[in-house]
């Protein structure tokens, strides 16, 4: 590992100021992704500004009926939080389906959202990778890409975003609050992560030195009946092949409202806007769910090794909505 300077700040503005002066510096949360990437020489920060204990570690109810999650809340604490489990169960399920008990105890909410892709070439400095070193080429397109994206890819990069939490947050229309050199911003989760395009080195719309301070969940009554389903190669402790986060509000057989997001299919958590629009106001049933999933996935452009993800994503969405429809068993 290369050496670096380690700093802590007593205020969030102090932390932002420290990083603003260090173009190659980074914030440190639990370190479960960043320290790993530093060991692999993929991340080479010359300054770490430790913000794990600086940002809030509380989950609080907002006056509008929503919930604010401090950036420093651990993944375990968040998954176990009674408010989250009662109002947004898919969020708790998403966290619990990721990593391990030990990792979730160290990992922070903000760090989880900003973890980097698990594309094997990104983590291997001996291979070309446009995300790690722009302009060197993409090893995955002609190589091992079974786990990678089917939607929104570019000729430069076909990576997926690995966070399960982010998928649930995108489905819930959460917003991220940041403090940066240019002041405070509120960024919808649906816009935080970006598609690779010609600039796969940029995972998100954040600018250097933007500190995530909190994540706000809007009130969404029907999210109390929501579900996060993760399909993976092992029963536990594996990154996703495909995930679906969904909540549905059905009254007298008619879909009043619905939220659907896919994980494991794109460079960002994929909100299924088309499927939602098709379903809203119409009857709730297997045929409708299938048609909506097919419409959403019509733009999928899989590679030779990951075409299986298209039917897998469709079936996972249909099955998840059907189970939500059945309700408590």
């Amino acid at each position, binding site marked *: *590992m290369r*050496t*670096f*300077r*380690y700093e802590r700040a007593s205020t969030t503005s102090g932390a932002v100021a420290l990083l603003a002066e260090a173009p190659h510096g980074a914030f*440190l949360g*639990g*370190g*479960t992704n960043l*320290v*790993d990437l530093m*060991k*692999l020489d993929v991340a080479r920060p010359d300054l*770490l500004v*430790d913000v*794990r204990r600086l940002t809030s570690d509380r989950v609080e109810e907002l006056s509008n009926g929503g919930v604010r999650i401090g950036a420093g809340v651990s993944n*375990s604490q968040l*998954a*176990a939080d009674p408010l*989250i*489990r*009662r*109002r*947004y*169960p898919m969020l*708790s*399920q998403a966290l*619990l*389906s990721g*990593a*391990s*008990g*030990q*990792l979730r*105890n*160290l990992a922070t909410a903000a760090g989880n959202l900003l973890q980097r892709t698990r594309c094997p070439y990104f983590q291997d400095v001996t291979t070309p990778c446009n995300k790690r070193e722009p302009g060197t080429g993409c090893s995955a397109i002609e190589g091992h890409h079974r786990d990678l994206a089917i939607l929104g890819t570019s000729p430069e990069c076909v990576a997926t975003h690995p966070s399960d939490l982010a998928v649930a947050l995108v489905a819930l229309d959460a917003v991220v609050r940041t403090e940066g050199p240019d002041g405070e911003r509120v960024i919808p989760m649906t816009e935080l992560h970006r598609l690779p395009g010609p600039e796969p080195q940029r995972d998100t719309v954040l600018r250097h030195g933007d500190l995530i301070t909190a994540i706000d969940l809007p009130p969404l009554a029907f999210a*109390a*009946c*929501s*579900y996060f389903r993760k399909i993976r190669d092992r*029963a*536990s*402790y594996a990154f996703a092949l495909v995930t679906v986060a969904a909540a549905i509000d059905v009254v007298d057989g008619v879909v009043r409202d619905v939220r659907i997001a896919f994980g494991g299919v794109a460079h960002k958590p994929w909100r299924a806007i088309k499927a939602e629009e098709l379903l809203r106001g119409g009857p709730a049933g297997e045929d409708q769910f299938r048609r909506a999933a097919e419409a959403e996935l019509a733009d999928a452009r899989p590679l030779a090794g990951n075409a299986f993800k298209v039917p897998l994503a469709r079936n996972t969405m249909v099955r*998840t909505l059907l*189970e*939500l429809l*059945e*309700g*408590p*068993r």
Partner: protein
Amino acid sequence: MEAEVTFRVDGTSHRLTVDVRTTVLDALRERLGNTSAKKGCDHGQCGACTVLLDGQRVNSCLALAVAHDGAEIVTAAGLASDGELHPLQRAFIRHDAFQCGYCTPGQIVSAVGMLREAEAGWPSAVTAGQPADGGSGGSDGPTVGILTDDEVRERMSGNLCRCAAYANIVPAIQEVARG
């Protein structure tokens, strides 16, 4: 860059100067001579390095020592009190829950942390994993006495065993969980 840190490890306080790149695992093993926690993968994937850090189980190979200055650390070696093995240590021996033993300190410390988490009502992917709970988002959490084997496997999935002693690890943990 170097930094001065203090730790309480298995009940004893230490003050040491570390290179900021030093992980808690390397500080324990290389600087304090406590080789209880093992280095398996050094990338957060195997759980052999699990320690209790301020009461919670974590992968010490990804925790920078400087970021945890002042922490209370417990390794498997510190679980025994007054020469009396911890109930989980005794259960592992009784159930022959290891072969080479390399993963064992991590397994035992992880099980200690895991049972505390279950006792605190923390859910797991098994308890909170069904849409069928109709919005309650899982039960209020199991009491330790009713952890199923599936539940133990899920909660312990961050600890790999290359000798595949799982068939004996789960019953060893269950013996303690069920009291």
